[in-house]
């Protein structure tokens, strides 16, 4: 009887200690270097999209000439979203990506509906879209 109590107490003590030793708090996803790289490259691609538009005459800025690049960037944003959906503690990241995706889709639709973009519209979009990328990039880096 006494031996049984001692064994139970020892097992309880071991369990408590092992729980304590494995104790780590987790409030944010783990840093992902591959995701940081993907965010950085796609942000650069969307910046370059508008820089290249500014370099050519208005008549050549037709949506059709850029739709492939819009789609490539859109697909990368979807891929970043998918990878974040698979991470635990992802609520803040998903909210940032949702805003970015909606802004990029709106910019793409505006170009498609209007066929071309003026210099002013390009500069404004370049600046706004970059503003949507920055929080995502800096948040991922903060996880390091």
């Amino acid at each position, binding site marked *: 009887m006494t031996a049984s109590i001692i064994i139970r107490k020892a097992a309880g003590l071991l369990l408590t200690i092992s729980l304590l030793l494995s104790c780590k708090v987790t409030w944010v996803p783990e840093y992902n270097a591959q995701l940081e790289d993907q965010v950085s490259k796609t942000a650069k691609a969307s910046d370059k999209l508008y820089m290249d538009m500014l370099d050519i005459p208005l008549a050549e800025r037709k949506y059709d000439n850029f739709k492939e690049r819009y789609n490539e960037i859109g697909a990368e944003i979807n891929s970043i979203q998918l990878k974040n959906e698979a991470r635990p503690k992802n609520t*803040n990241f998903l909210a940032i990506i949702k*805003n970015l995706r909606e802004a990029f889709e709106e910019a793409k639709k505006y170009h498609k509906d209007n066929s071309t973009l003026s210099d002013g519209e390009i500069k*404004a979009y370049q600046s706004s879209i970059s503003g949507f990328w*920055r929080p995502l990039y800096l948040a991922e880096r*903060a996880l390091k």
Partner: protein
Amino acid sequence: MAFDINEITAQMLGAVKTTLKDNWNMAKETAASFLQTRKDRLELLVSLRLNNEISQKFFMKRLEDEKKIFESEMHAVAIITKAMAQKAANAALDVLTKAVEKALPF
């Protein structure tokens, strides 16, 4: 080995302070960079509108974007502060677990 809870608590607090100090600058710099880039964007938008390079409707739409960008920035600040708190809490727990490991008789 003796387990002095007062000594361990002081060490845990020290670990929290060091971790928060190391990460505080990054949080401050990020918030400052968000403010500066917002100022630059608004300056650009106002200048484009005043020079009639964009329509009023397009200008108002970009101001709507600013609200969403601000929301995203707040989410980023939340991530940064949570990551800071996580590092600090884990540093404190690390001190405690190491002290328990040392004090164990087996």
